[in-house]
């Protein structure tokens, strides 16, 4: 049995569906991200697990026990809020010790555990500081320590890094990952930032319009998106139009590929810009014309048009000449790098 199981979890607000029949199983110690644009239902899902939003239908099973009927203050989950939600009238130590106090833990143990938690997040010596007098990154650490010190069964992170600047965010990402690994708490992260989700998670749950689009390891979700939405939401991608003959052959403009699984008729194929290459001279490929090229330091970003649709491709800045605007090019890629997109929801 998985550690946390969401079973047909549903919520709607006055007729508008926020989350529709969500199923998910999370293993003990796993780090799972709920990723999607705002309004996709990821935050509502987190709030239902936390107990701040009532569940319409479905179960939340933690070690087999249904949480739905448990009051939010009895669930024993650690939560880090987007705004940190620190108690402004309490010191760092009082903030962290609050949950222990609620559990009736005696003063001596409270102090030891608070100090341990502060050491864990690198806040030694800040015990008597008030949150207002700390930087965003430090407040973030207090919030994390406060959530972890109660040894929660589950750690819920609600866009915890979105208020930090880019550099600090990267630092906190690796630190968060390392802390989570060392204590092994099952963690659910809600984020709209694909980089954050990919950097931190064991698995990513991509959500859109209250539904799960795809669940998988970061490289799988990125490399083999299951739908046009996933393909477009995670990084840049090219969606090409082609035709399948229904017997494992797909033609894209001037290129013909072996791809199993497609029914006869029009198909959509996703391919990442960095996986597109220039075809060897005389080899088969997809003919295209360069529309624009933009220099980006480590690489060039080219846009081109072809019979199968508009394309973006990356060319490493390795000293080789780069085709100019208006030049004709021929592109190729490994069939394994392309994924056949599911019908339906387009991004």
């Amino acid at each position, binding site marked *: 049995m998985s550690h946390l199981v969401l079973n047909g979890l549903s919520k709607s607000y006055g007729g508008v569906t926020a989350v529709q029949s969500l199923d998910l199983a999370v293993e003990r110690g796993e780090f799972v991200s709920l990723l999607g644009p705002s309004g996709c239902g990821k935050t509502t899902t987190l709030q239902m697990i936390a*107990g*701040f939003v009532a569940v319409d239908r479905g179960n939340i099973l933690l070690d087999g026990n249904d949480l739905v009927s448990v*009051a*939010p*203050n009895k669930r024993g989950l650690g939560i880090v809020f987007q705004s940190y939600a620190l108690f402004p009238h309490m010191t760092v130590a009082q903030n962290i010790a609050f949950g222990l106090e609620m559990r009736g833990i005696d003063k001596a143990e409270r102090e030891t555990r608070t100090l341990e938690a502060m050491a864990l997040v690198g806040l030694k010596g800040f015990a008597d500081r008030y949150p207002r007098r700390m930087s965003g990154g430090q407040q973030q650490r207090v919030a994390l320590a406060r959530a972890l010190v109660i040894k929660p069964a589950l750690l819920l992170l609600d866009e915890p890094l979105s208020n930090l600047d880019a550099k600090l965010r990267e630092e906190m990402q690796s630190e968060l990952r390392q802390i989570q690994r060392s204590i092994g708490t099952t963690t659910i992260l809600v984020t709209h930032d694909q980089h954050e989700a990919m950097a931190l998670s064991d698995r990513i749950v991509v959500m859109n319009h209250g539904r799960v689009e795809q669940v998988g390891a970061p490289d799988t979700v990125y490399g083999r998106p299951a739908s046009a939405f996933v393909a477009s939401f995670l990084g840049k991608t090219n969606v090409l139009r082609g035709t399948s003959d229904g017997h494992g052959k797909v033609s894209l403009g001037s290129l013909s590929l072996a791809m199993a699984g497609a029914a006869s008729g029009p198909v959509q194929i996703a391919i990442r810009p960095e996986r597109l290459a220039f075809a060897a001279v005389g080899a088969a490929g997809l003919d295209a014309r360069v529309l624009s090229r933009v220099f980006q330091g480590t690489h060039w970003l080219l846009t081109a048009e072809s019979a199968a649709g508009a394309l973006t491709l990356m060319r490493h800045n390795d000293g080789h000449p780069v085709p100019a605007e208006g030049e004709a090019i021929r592109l190729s890629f490994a069939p394994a790098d392309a994924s056949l997109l599911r019908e339906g929801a387009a991004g």
Partner: protein
Amino acid sequence: MSLAISSRATPYYLTGPALLVFLGLVIIPLGMTVLLSFYDWGQYKGIVPEFTLKNWIEVFTDSYFFEIFLRTFRIAILVTLATMLIGVPQAYILNRMSPGWRSAILLVVIGPLLVSVVARTLGWALLLGSTGLVNQGLIALGLIAEPLAFMFTETGIVIVLIHVLIPFMILAVWASLQRLDPQIENAALSLGAGQTTIWLRVILPQIVPGILSGAIIVFSLAASAFASPAIIGGRRLKVAATLAYDEFLNTLNWPLGAAVASLLLLALVAITVGSNRLIERRYSQVFE
């Protein structure tokens, strides 16, 4: 207390006590007062709970009451206009001051609000009397030969009410000035506008809602003012509030006093609610 552990009934539990108190102590007494205005009264029989329109007919037809209501609203309009004329520029000056000066002037604006209106009116009675400082000063300056009559005149009442109510105007206008983009004057300057144009075309249109909401407060407080008109106006120069007081505590004709009070309440509610609606409709698109 919190949204998290709560049911749909929670807000009703939380507001329930206050609601009960207000039902018992506002709605019922006000209702009883309106009801009282339809009761009969006689010098010797006292209040007789029999339905009659006589008090209302008297209030609407007797020129004595008409004159008092007319005076009340005339004073209220004059006070409102005067507080606008003084308060709007003063709020603008206040807004342009350095923070230190501003809080000092703010103390001058707000401080008197917290002093009992009786003490403030007493000050004016001392100043405005026939041997008061104002008359002495004007005579010393050679502007007048004989002392001017301020006490027991409408002019006196208006002066005192301006003093009592101008803080409300200044605060309302200042609040809307604070919402202005501080760069907006510079923007207008860069486009070639002069100071007068900036005032009339850029600043004023943006603070009109503030001025109007200040005006509504000042008007309704001026029309229902009691202590200042009672002290400055004396027993003869009556306004609606002092009239109701006399009917209740001197003549003891409570039903007639209740009719006067009900009429004052209805007139003020109609005027304030009506002008609030008008302002909201007119300005809701431009602001907020």
